[in-house]
């Protein structure tokens, strides 16, 4: 019943939202007003956060014995705080995992557990790793479930770990790297205060406040499109707009960017899984 109510609220919001969005960009839509309307719906929907649906699905997937080895993630997957430990795990990743020899963000770590512990094939997970239309990948629900156990906790990336520190430094350098047909780096749009593309505000990733804006609400349910999306997707779509080729799924480049942004946000409160316009 609660689910029905949520879906109803979401449908209404999405219909209204897409009516507002359809003519956006070029023909006299009052974008400031549209933003305010989105904010209103977001506030109203907080009580029936659609991310909860994906958390429920993720919980089933986390607890079920699955994969060729028929083990559950709950009994095999260590997100840095001990096998199966969830409280605060999302806000303490990315972190270094000695068993993998890599710094990993939560999504990448769950993928690692699915392949190394449950025996799934990486290529199958990476084929369509992000939500599209009515399709939500299992990994997205799993990440949303894990993230829900860090709601309203402070980011606490272990920056004293030299491996994490190095990932942070490399991530910072990646944001400055200009290439491609338009000479864009991340910083072209996200390197100074108060900038917009059209009416879209652009956080300055070089400052804590801006880096925080980039990570505090993901994974997020997008009202436009009606899909649940993760930080991995967010980084992927930035590279699309940068006119770059596509980062491989669960690669160092994306982990390092997330380390840079999340590490810079240490001490601030994680608000996801949330709702995005």
């Amino acid at each position, binding site marked *: 019943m609660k689910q029905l109510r949520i879906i109803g609220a979401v449908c209404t919001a999405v219909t209204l939202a897409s009516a507002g969005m359809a003519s*956006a*960009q*070029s023909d*006299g*839509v*009052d*974008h400031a007003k549209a933003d305010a309307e989105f904010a209103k719906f977001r506030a109203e929907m907080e009580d029936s956060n659609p991310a909860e649906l994906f958390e429920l699905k993720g919980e089933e997937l986390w607890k079920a014995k699955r994969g060729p080895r028929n083990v559950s993630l709950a009994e095999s997957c260590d997100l840095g705080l001990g096998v199966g430990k969830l409280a605060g795990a999302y806000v303490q990743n990315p972190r270094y995992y000695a068993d993998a020899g890599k710094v990993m963000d939560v999504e990448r770590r769950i993928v690692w557990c699915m392949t190394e512990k449950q025996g799934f094939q990486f290529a199958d997970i990476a084929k369509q790793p992000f939500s599209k239309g009515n399709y939500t990948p299992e990994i997205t629900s799993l990440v949303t479930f894990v993230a829900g156990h860090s709601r309203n906790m402070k980011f606490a990336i272990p920056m004293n770990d030299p491996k994490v520190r*190095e990932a942070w*430094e*490399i991530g*910072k*350098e*990646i944001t*400055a*790297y*200009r*290439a*491609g*047909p*338009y*000479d*864009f*780096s991340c910083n*072209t*749009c996200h390197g100074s205060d*108060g*900038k*917009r*593309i*059209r*009416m*879209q505000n*652009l956080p300055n990733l070089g400052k804590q406040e801006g880096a925080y804006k980039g990570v505090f609400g993901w994974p997020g349910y997008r009202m436009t499109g009606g899909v649940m999306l993760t930080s991995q997707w967010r980084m992927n779509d930035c*590279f*699309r*707009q940068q*006119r*770059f*080729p*596509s*980062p*491989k799924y669960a*690669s*160092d*480049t*994306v982990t*390092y960017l997330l380390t840079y942004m999340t590490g810079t946000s240490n001490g601030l409160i994680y608000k996801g899984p949330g709702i995005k316009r």
Partner: protein
Amino acid sequence: MTKNLILAATAAIATLSAMPAFADATTRAKAIETIKRDFEPRGQADLDRLAEDGLQAICNRTNNDPKGDIVKVLEADQIAGIQYPADGKLMGDWKKGERLAQSGRGFTWSDKPGLPVGGNCYNCHQISPKEQAFGTVGPSLYQYGKQRGNTPEMQKYTYNKIFNSKSYNVCSDMPRFGHVGALKPDQIKDLVALLLDPESLVNK
């Protein structure tokens, strides 16, 4: 003796203060190595897009602020590659320019290759007062021509700036629309008119 100590201390301080710069270069090398390893082609976006051209490489290594004669050489190099419309005129149709300025299409992996590429102008600039949904990454261009006039020199400067923004500011944030073949000379002409034609809404 004291003098030698002071010299040694000075040298040590100099070494220490040089270290962050050295560390930056190492980290940058690691960042580039990581990027080269981590991408795959998608749609029209091939891996060759990850390679820096000479100008990008210099901007990347100077925090977008190269100094000295190299700047003049690079800018002259960019200007040398500019192509002009066949009829020699640099101002076209400002209304066509406005339509082109509105479109942000082009060059992403989700854009169909071959479609006309947009000017992307409103993504970053205020231009016509009729369009309120403008970006602020670049400066406002409202009343651009009214403030500057439309002398042949101003037409040429404006044309060159759109064809290759790096002609006058070697690490400009703006793409080199003509240089990379996103916009053709006749399209750039229309954008010049949008900014400089006294009839354009930009200058009303």
